[in-house]
């Protein structure tokens, strides 16, 4: 079984559990109801769909990879097609994904293969954590191991943590123009990577309002990529992880 994003879920090699057409029909109403709840920012109803699904025999792996993650992917598609998705919808999609991962992974019959590792925090001087939180929820659902460094993170801390975690990607969130462009943000992280000959080992992803208003800013500050929003960041970061892993 694989999610739409190609994430290995740990049960794909067991033919007896392959998703057949009948199974898909059984799951369909749950998939639809869950996604509707997310779009409606109805947290209790989304959780109820998950609970009902488990009670009716849906595997924890299926809940995550056939219901929760596809809903996130559907939001990504909607954003790419310029259909209006609000910050509240990103938040709820990510929040529930995070909760489901925490609760259901211990119940998986086999530990899922992790895609990679990311250290993430807000830039030095920046105390806005919402975007980071949305990204973390999505990454967890995409089987990325996340090390949350918190708010107002010094550039040296990003690099030290990435080395310690053996991460592939350093994620830096900034909501203010001076923290996005400042000397102690991404620019300094890039400089340290350069000085320590670590540029091949790590990729830097950035996000936050200033990057939305200046699409070229991420290059100016030395990042490898940026994401339009918290949900899209999941896709961008997993792409960077694979890039590092291919080297």
């Amino acid at each position, binding site marked *: 079984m694989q999610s739409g994003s190609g994430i290995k879920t740990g049960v794909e090699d067991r033919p007896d559990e392959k998703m057949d057409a009948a199974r898909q029909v059984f799951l369909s109403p749950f998939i639809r109801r869950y996604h509707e709840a997310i*779009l*409606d*920012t109805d*947290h209790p109803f989304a959780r109820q769909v998950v609970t009902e699904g488990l009670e009716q025999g849906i595997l924890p792996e299926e809940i995550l990879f056939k219901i929760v993650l596809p809903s996130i992917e559907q939001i990504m598609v909607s954003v790419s097609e310029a259909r*209006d998705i*609000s*910050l*509240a*919808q990103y*938040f*709820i999609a990510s*929040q529930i994904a995070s909760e489901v991962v925490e609760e259901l992974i211990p119940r998986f019959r086999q530990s899922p293969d992790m895609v990679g590792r990311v250290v993430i925090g807000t830039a030095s*001087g*920046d*105390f*806005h*954590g*919402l975007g980071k*939180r949305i990204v973390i929820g999505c990454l967890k659902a995409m089987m990325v191991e996340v090390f949350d460094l918190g708010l107002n993170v010094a550039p040296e801390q990003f690099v030290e943590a990435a080395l310690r975690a053996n991460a592939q990607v350093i994620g830096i969130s900034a909501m*203010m*123009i*001076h*923290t996005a*462009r*400042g000397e102690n943000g991404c620019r300094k992280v890039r400089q340290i990577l350069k000085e320590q000959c670590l540029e091949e080992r790590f990729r830097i992803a950035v996000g936050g*309002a*200033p990057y939305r*208003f*200046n699409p070229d*800013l991420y290059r*100016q500050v030395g990042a490898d990529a940026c994401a339009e929003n918290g949900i899209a960041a999941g896709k961008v970061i997993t792409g960077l992880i694979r890039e590092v892993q291919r080297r």
Partner: protein
Amino acid sequence: MNSMERLVAAIQGKPADRIPIFCNLLDQGARELNLSLEEYYSKGEYVAEGQLKMREKYGYDNLWSLFYVGKEAELLGCRRMIFAKDGPPNVGEMVLRRPEDIPALQVPDDIYSHPAFEEQRKCLRILRDEAGGKYPICAYLTASMTLPAILMGMEKWMSLLLTGPTALRDELLHKCSLFFQREIEAYRQAGADVLVYSNPFGSTDFITPKIFQELSLPWMQKDLQPGGTAGVVYYCGSSPFNDVIETVIEHLGIQVFYLSPMDDIRTGKRRVAGRGLTCGVINDILLIDWTREQVRAEVRRIIEAGKPGGRFLFGTLVMPFTIPEDNIRVMLEAACEFGEGETVC
């Protein structure tokens, strides 16, 4: 024609020498006075002097009484701000650490006389004495739906808003609305003319249309109903809001719309449909790097989209500290040039 007359003409759709030009320079005042940002914002006299100097230097139409957004948190008990060298300060201590702190939150009865309002009061007195009636004096007020983000952080507020408990959420909204009602009264008493009603939660970029209808709109009505909407400007930070303009006019009666740079100006103006003033806003983050030609071209594009038919103002968003002075001048000269002349068809 002075700046106030120009603004009034634009609101009423009457002829003017040019469109009004609002430029939101805040932190730059510290540079004018050769002070650190922390020193600059410590005294109302400094902020007033900085505002008057910058308006004189560049020749735009408005003055600001805003120090920084965290000032509202100070009125509600925040005692620590974290100042930067090159940008606005952050709230350094959340007034509400967790939702359980909400019942203890106290809203001051009298904001005008509150010690935490003293420097703003001084600033407004100087601005009013020096420029009252000639230049519109702006004040910045955060809506009840958005103020909790300053008090508890956006993460916690979004979580409380969307996942509850709803009783605590509503108690907080009630207190924030009460604060807003008292704050707008204080600013009016102190002589502010233009009351910028800041509410990113009034944009469907932030919340769904359903939450807008069921929560944002009723709380905006509660905020604004007691004092009315005279001088009030609808503003959602950098979030676009063209799709709610019709509802806002119908239910709130606001007549001035300060669009997001992401809003299409022609669409915004079409929706306002002659019932008020549309403000076309430049994406000023790009002013940091743009060439003279790029700045002029963008100003021209905005004004050509908004000026036909009148009732239009050119404005800026956050004006980052690092925008070169030359680009500020080029932008304002271009706005005067392209915004010149009869504005009513």
